[in-house]
């Protein structure tokens, strides 16, 4: 980089080469790849004690007694805590979010019952194993996906097993289905997916002078601060969460209880406490993507025009609901995809079970419903002998058009047409017949395409706000504290690019800090594809204030001189907030119910093309390439955007072909990475990302969020490619070789032995 040292140079205007639009490596990139970076779980302190968790071995049972005497008597044990030791034994104000430590009933294998602190890790784990729990087993609810008839049989919570429902309709769906020339139905099952963040949950906490400081990964430091304060009966100001550097999240650190465990242990022991969950603990006890069963029907006329989209979805939230209702709400909104149709209906239910607790996961309810819709679109195109891209094109919402279910305008930055075209113009799609003609032996070749949308931010009516704070020092150094937090995507690097261009200063004048509740103003979750969009906009706004002050002081003057004047005048500190825009009008949604449906004003799109081979004899699938077109508005940091796209596609491949957290009658089957398979480097084909030109008028420099939508089209594109290759349209994810082989045999008319 050849940016001049401007400490004494004139600050004129925007630098000749803007930072926005440049691929800037993460500040920590070198330290990350060399292993030098110290993560929150690497943190140590003198006098530190080590913690371990005792977890339920039953999926559903009354706790008759919890006997900690043998653990307490073990040499080196400092503390053993159970539910009675938690001042307010709830993870938040809603009891359906579960207790901190189960004290009456356990509803999942792996649910936390007790915490142990000891002089070293081995002692802590040994003592945790000595805790004697007497269980009275209760009937197991296997969940609404695998055992829908059981939902009403045994209640896991006082109100029954239905944790939430959402329903909405526009037009007359039944009439449209009844008169359509073609109705395509998909009955899909999607599985529980584990986030597999590289760093498993953990960190450290210290108690000092009535305040607790926690170093632990979090996608929502403000929420975790409130959860800790609620459980410990503290004032939120007495809880400080420092939540990075951390190795990945993908949704798993949204409502992770580990910050609460750490605070509780530090509070009781008055010593620094370290806790780091193992991969097996995380796999069994950590949240998962909600498994869904979804029935999608689309009605199409002979010209390929959609007349109805009808979806019915049931989601398994596991023992507690946490994000479940919001996940279902997002499913409802995205159930009509990017398509315009006069008739649409969504009926959704989220239900409790004794399976893994489900929570937030990149895509947040969209991959589950988009799978069936997109597969139905591809199947309809095949039935009508239309190009699947053309069928979609005929039915796309245009920028400013109205959402098919809710009727609100989708915003002027919407680029579904351009995104689809970018993918469909790729040689993978144009030359799909030549690819198919090259099939050899049992390896049949196919190509599939799919499209998806995902709202950016929490949605209308939810008071979604990001904030930033800025201080300029006498030497001209600028510090910015902003959120949402960084959970591995190096968001602070991109925030700094925005700041540099607003201020017209070189990036090395600016430092950005995220993920510390003491310093960073409350900015909400690193979720809902909102960090770059909302956090970037807050940074843009706070920098605009300083820029105005600098301009007022006179253009062309040395920054240091002006900075010293601002400090002396008490004008060195600035704060700004960015409230995410609500929809311009709520359409069919009653205004008082806006927050319930929470439609978005801003959407991102992704279209993907997958080229693959299927072995007709064995059911194996081998991917040969993925094209990922993504509409991110203006990509602030294109390298980081492409990295997010490639990671999303890889996670989509896992969802489509490999990943299935299996539970049998409440008991985990896939308990670690030996049998819960994620794609490896050789299972992940070359991915070509196309950044679709666009501009989101409400976002910083035209940017909007994109990290979730890229995970959505991969599975339906893969399934459609399998359909094109074999004539079999897989509707149960993941498409394992055995599942596909069974479907291929059935299609060949071979009766199962």
């Amino acid at each position, binding site marked *: 980089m050849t940016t001049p040292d401007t400490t004494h140079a004139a600050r004129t205007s925007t630098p000749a080469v803007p930072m926005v639009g440049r691929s800037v490596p993460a500040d920590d990139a070198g330290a990350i790849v060399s292993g030098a970076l110290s993560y929150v779980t690497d943190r140590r302190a003198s006098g530190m004690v080590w913690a371990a968790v005792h977890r339920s071995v039953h999926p559903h049972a009354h706790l008759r007694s919890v006997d900690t005497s043998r653990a307490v008597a073990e040499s080196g044990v400092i503390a053993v805590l159970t539910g009675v030791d938690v001042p307010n034994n709830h993870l938040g104000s809603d009891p359906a979010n579960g207790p901190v430590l189960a004290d009456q009933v356990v509803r999942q294998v792996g649910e936390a019952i007790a915490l142990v602190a000891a002089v070293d890790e081995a002692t802590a784990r040994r003592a945790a194993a000595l805790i004697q729990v007497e269980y009275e087993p209760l009937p197991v609810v296997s969940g609404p996906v695998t055992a829908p008839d059981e939902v009403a049989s045994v209640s896991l919570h006082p109100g029954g097993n239905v944790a939430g429902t959402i329903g909405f309709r526009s037009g007359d769906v039944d009439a449209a289905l009844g008169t359509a020339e073609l109705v395509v139905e998909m009955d899909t099952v999607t599985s529980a997916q584990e986030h597999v963040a590289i760093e498993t949950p953990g960190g450290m906490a210290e108690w000092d002078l009535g305040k607790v400081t926690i170093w632990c990964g979090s996608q929502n430091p403000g929420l975790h601060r409130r959860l800790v304060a609620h459980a410990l009966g503290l004032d939120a100001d007495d809880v400080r969460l420092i939540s990075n550097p951390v190795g990945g999240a993908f949704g798993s650190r949204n409502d992770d209880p580990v910050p609460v465990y750490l605070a509780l242990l530090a509070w009781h022991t008055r010593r620094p406490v370290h806790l780091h969950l193992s991969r097996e603990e995380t796999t069994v006890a950590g949240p998962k993507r909600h498994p869904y069963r979804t029935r999608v029907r689309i009605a199409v006329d002979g010209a390929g025009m959609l007349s109805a989209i009808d979806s019915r979805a049931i989601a398994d939230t596991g023992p507690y609901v946490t994000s479940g209702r919001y996940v279902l709400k997002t499913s409802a909104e995205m159930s009509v995809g990017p398509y315009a149709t006069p008739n649409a209906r969504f009926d959704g239910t989220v239900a409790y079970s004794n399976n893994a607790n489900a929570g937030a996961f990149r895509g947040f309810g969209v991959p589950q419903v988009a799978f069936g819709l997109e597969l139905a679109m591809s199947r309809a195109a095949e039935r009508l002998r239309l190009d699947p891209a053309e069928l979609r094109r005929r039915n796309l919402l245009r920028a400013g058009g109205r959402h098919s279910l809710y009727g609100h305008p989708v915003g002027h930055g919407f680029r579904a047409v351009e995104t689809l075209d970018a993918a469909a113009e790729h040689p993978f799609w144009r030359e799909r017949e030549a690819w198919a003609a090259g099939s050899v*032996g049992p390896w049949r070749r196919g190509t599939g395409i799919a499209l998806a949308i995902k709202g950016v931010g929490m949605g209308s009516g939810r008071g979604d706000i990001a904030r930033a704070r800025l201080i300029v020092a006498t030497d001209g150094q600028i510090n910015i504290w902003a959120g949402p937090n960084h959970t591995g995507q190096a968001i602070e690097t991109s925030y700094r690019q925005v700041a540099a261009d607003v201020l017209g200063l070189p990036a090395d004048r600016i430092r950005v800090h995220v993920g510390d509740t003491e310093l960073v103003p409350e900015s909400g979750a690193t979720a809902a594809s909102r960090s770059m969009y909302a956090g970037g906009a807050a940074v843009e706004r706070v920098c605009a204030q300083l820029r105005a002050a600098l301009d007022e002081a006179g253009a062309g003057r040395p920054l240091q001189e002006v900075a010293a004047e601002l400090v002396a005048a008490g004008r060195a500190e600035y704060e700004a907030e960015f409230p995410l825009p609500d929809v311009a009008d709520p359409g069919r949604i009653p205004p008082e119910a806006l927050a319930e449906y929470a439609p978005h004003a801003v959407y991102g799109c992704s279209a993907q093309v997958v080229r693959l081979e299927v072995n007709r004899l064995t059911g194996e699938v081998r991917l040969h390439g993925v094209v990922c077109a993504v509409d991110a508005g203006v990509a602030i940091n294109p390298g980081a955007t492409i990295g997010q796209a490639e990671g999303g596609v890889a996670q989509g491949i896992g969802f489509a072909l490999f990943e299935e957290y299996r539970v049998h009658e409440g008991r985990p089957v896939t308990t670690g990475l030996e049998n819960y398979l994620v794609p490896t480097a050789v299972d992940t084909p070359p991915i070509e990302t196309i950044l679709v030109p666009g501009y989101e008028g409400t976002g910083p420099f035209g940017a909007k969020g994109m990290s979730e939508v890229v995970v959505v089209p991969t599975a339906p594109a893969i399934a459609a490619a399998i359909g094109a290759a074999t004539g079999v349209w897989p509707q149960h994810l993941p498409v394992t070789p055995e599942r596909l082989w069974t479907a291929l045999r059935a299609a060949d008319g071979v009766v199962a032995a």
Partner: protein
Amino acid sequence: MSGRILLSAATESAADRLCATARPVAGGTDLLVHGLDAAPVNLVDLSRLAGRRRPVSRLPNGSIRVSATAPLSVITSADVPVPAALADAIAEFASPQIRNRATIGGNIANGSPAADLVPPLVVCDAIVGVRGSGGRRDVPIGDLLVGPGRTTLAPGEWIEYVDLAPVHHSGFRKLGYRRALAIAVVSLAWSWTRPGSGPELADVRLAAGAVAPTVVRCTRAEAALRSLRPDDVGAAARAIQDDITPIDDLRASAHYRAGALAGLVCELPMVAAHRGGKTERL
């Protein structure tokens, strides 16, 4: 963890002596998976023996001797090539990092019915060179395999080398649920000679993994596979069902294992046709 002693054997005779009272370990890649806490107290590290001998050498009788204590990546980079079936299996084995540690001896001694390297050894009529404080013995590979996790190796015995018969045509196909770091759901190794220029086959050997308590030689299918003509291949795919006793487990049903193995047999003509050319997809 307490009390474990790791002894490093610098010579074969030292290894014989030490193994009499402790358990041999070479790459240690299975030991780590099973967990160090589950390991026996005393271990003898055989990995330093590998550097003392050539990893692959040709014997006067034409057989190929392959070190059982050398890392797999050393074997495939040796100047004497190993039979294609073994090379294929090593290429599919775990991951590059594990291939830099894991050994043929460990893969045999681990006794897994899904062991990737054992089917190629079976179709190459491998003779396993076993050593122990009581001396050395040569054992046909089939006589070592007893059941899941079990072999006829006596306590204190370790595997020094395997001798492979020269085979003209051979190969190995693994069906795993992903393409690296996956346990075989089924696997098939083959070797044969081609007496003429047509599709006829002779000296056919077939061995399958993950479809019986041990890797199994599939003699009924061998008898049926007289040629690579569709009718003989179909007959072999049917006959192999009587050579195997697959079970349902976490990874797959017995029904699928049987069907997929039949599929691997049906692929053989295509695989054979592509031998010598690009084999990336096979």
